[in-house]
């Protein structure tokens, strides 16, 4: 074949490819998942292969930057067609009319059937009766523990602590200053993460965000404060993000640690000991099971160009095949009818599945950050000994009462 023929052939082929590229519309998607095993990659790949009309082009935005990037996109009028948002910020964007109302699209959808979704993730996507987002994946908190350390201290790893008193007693036994081991670790970092980790204890005690200064709420913060002040938990918990807490657990410095299922792949790889998970304890005499609900939602920002395509992508990502893939990176399906077949870490899967039944969503509230921040401050004040828990929570309650008066939870 002559060079000329080859070039002509190439030109024809590239013209064909170009015309196909023009016909195919691009859906831009922003997400924070940097683990290649995350279901988003499987979802994007199979979505792009499954049809010819649309192609998803993803942009990875770091987890801590996602909200900030979305705010910038709103300011400059350049939002993506599809975004994954952390569930408590959905209301912040929805209440300001920055998300597309997908109520009717969901109603008419042949793929998405809301009635099989867990209640928590259902509520998170709704603002004033209209739906603006739908859960992509959910998670919740449970208690990881180091069975080797349990045995070393004469505790039975098959009988993990089930109540607050048992947690405290186990933490006391497991604490070993010489071996640099703290009995328990949790996240009290000054960010949404500490609210997420504290709320389960608040609810287990019978407290609520509406009544932060109630005796029940104060008991919850008192419990955390005692753990730190007695030295069963490190003073560093106030400067540790959730992944730092897990690091300390994996390094053997924390005998127990509160954490979510997303940590499972990392723990599996790096924890060189017999690790296990159990459901969060209940408060003695109250017996209220509770944990926090976390996770990300799919939402279509206002100003998106490919709304139809974006919704098709949402439908595609809400099918059991994608959810099956999610558990590989420790992400749980928001649908109660999806059972992971032959799951990795089957025991942990059973525990988190059980825990999920008691997971409560945060909000939805358009000013959730303003409710969450006073809670974070109260936690830090109490744990550092700056203020007693009762006073810290009383001041937090004073800060959030005017907000709740305007817009109740």
């Amino acid at each position, binding site marked *: 074949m002559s060079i000329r023929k080859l070039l002509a052939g190439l030109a024809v082929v590239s013209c064909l490819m170009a015309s196909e590229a023009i016909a195919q519309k691009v859906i831009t998607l922003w997400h924070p998942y940097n683990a290649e095993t995350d279901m988003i990659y499987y979802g994007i790949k199979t979505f792009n292969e499954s049809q010819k009309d649309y192609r998803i082009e993803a942009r990875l935005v770091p987890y801590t930057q996602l*909200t*900030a990037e979305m*705010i910038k996109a*709103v*300011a*400059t*009028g350049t939002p993506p067609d599809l975004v994954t948002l952390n569930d408590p910020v959905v209301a*912040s*964007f929805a209440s*300001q*009319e*920055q998300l597309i109302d997908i109520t009717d699209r969901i109603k008419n959808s042949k793929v998405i059937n809301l009635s099989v979704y867990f209640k928590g993730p259902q509520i998170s996507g709704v603002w004033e009766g209209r739906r603006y987002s739908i859960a992509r994946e959910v998670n919740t908190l449970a208690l990881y523990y180091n069975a080797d350390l349990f045995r070393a201290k004469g505790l039975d790893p098959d009988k993990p602590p089930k109540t607050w008193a048992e947690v405290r007693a186990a933490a006391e036994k497991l604490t070993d200053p010489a071996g*640099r081991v703290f009995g328990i670790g949790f996240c009290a*970092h*000054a*960010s949404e993460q500490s609210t997420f980790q504290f709320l389960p204890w608040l609810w287990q005690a019978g407290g609520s965000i509406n009544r932060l200064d109630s005796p029940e709420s104060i008991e919850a913060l008192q419990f955390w404060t005692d753990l730190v002040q007695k030295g069963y938990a*490190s*003073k*560093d*918990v*106030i*400067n540790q993000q959730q992944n730092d807490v897990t690091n300390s657990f994996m*390094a053997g*410095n924390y005998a127990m640690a509160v954490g979510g299922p997303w940590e499972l792949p990392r723990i599996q790889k790096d924890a060189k000991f017999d690790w296990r998970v159990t459901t969060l304890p209940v408060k003695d005499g109250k017996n209220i099971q509770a944990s926090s609900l976390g996770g990300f939602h799919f939402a279509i920002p206002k100003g998106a160009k490919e709304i139809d395509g974006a919704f098709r992508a949402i439908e595609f990502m809400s099918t059991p095949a994608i959810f099956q893939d999610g558990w590989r990176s420790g992400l749980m399906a928001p649908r109660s009818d999806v059972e992971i077949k032959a799951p990795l870490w089957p025991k942990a899967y059973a525990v988190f599945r059980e825990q999920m039944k008691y997971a409560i969503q945060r909000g939805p509230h358009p*000013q959730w*950050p*303003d409710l969450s*921040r006073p809670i974070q*401050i109260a936690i*830090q*004040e109490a744990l*550092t000994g*700056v203020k007693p828990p009762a006073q810290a929570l009383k001041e937090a309650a004073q800060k959030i009462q005017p907000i709740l008066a305007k817009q109740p939870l």
Partner: protein
Amino acid sequence: MAPSRSPLLHVFLVAPVVYLLAMVGFPILYNVAMSVQDVTLRNLAQLVRPFVGLDNFRELIGDPIFRKVFVNSLAFVGVNVAGQVSLGLLAALFFAESFAGAHFLRGLLLATWMLPGLVVGALWKWMFASQYGVVNFVLAALHLIREPVHWLSDPAVAMASVMIAHVWYIMPFSMILIAAALTAIPQDLYEAAALDGAGPLARFRYVTLPALRPTLLAVACLVTIYSMRAFDMIFALTQGGPLDSSNVLPLLSYQFSFQQFKFGMGAAVGTFAVVFVLAVAVVYVRTLKQDVRA
């Protein structure tokens, strides 16, 4: 001036002015405008928003956290200026001595200044860790402390930790500027002073220090500006915590805008910082002018 030259002259004049207006003037004005408006996500993309006068500033000044962070910022800047000018001077004098590897080591020290702030923050977070950090390990090995110091989680200590890390981070920059000025001092001044019977201390006091005065002032101004905009390192180290004990104005502005959705408040904090830096910049420019005259 010859009229034939003027068209090109205008181009050269207009280009930087336009650049400055677009890249510096507009963001500052936009920020000032936002600080007197009620800005929400809904109207974020628009230019015209409800005017609220000085409400944002009033709310800010009434906020105990802002007052705390403002004082923090002043302390942070003050300690950085004092620490960096004095340590930078010491290091510059030390490396001005002729010993093997002096130039190489001075260059190596500058490498810290070239690191991204996030990396420096992550580095010090490791070193300051209370259980396994090298700082506590060394202090305990030297029997200086019995209990581990909670460098980053004790509200009474966190600010000092952030200051130490930041002085370490930026000090090489001060050192290089001072070192450059040191080489510019004519050697005959030292010889003349030595002939007049001046010892090393007197030579430092009456020759080096006066000759360095404008440079030290300029370094102080630059360090003030660098410290006022410290953000990434503190973000990585403490995120301003615990309890805002290590928080500074730029970080607070970010938290208001991007975590609390309070854009007007964030802009108001920014305006505070701009006014402060502007005042320092004026002092800096005046020192530079004096420098030229001297």
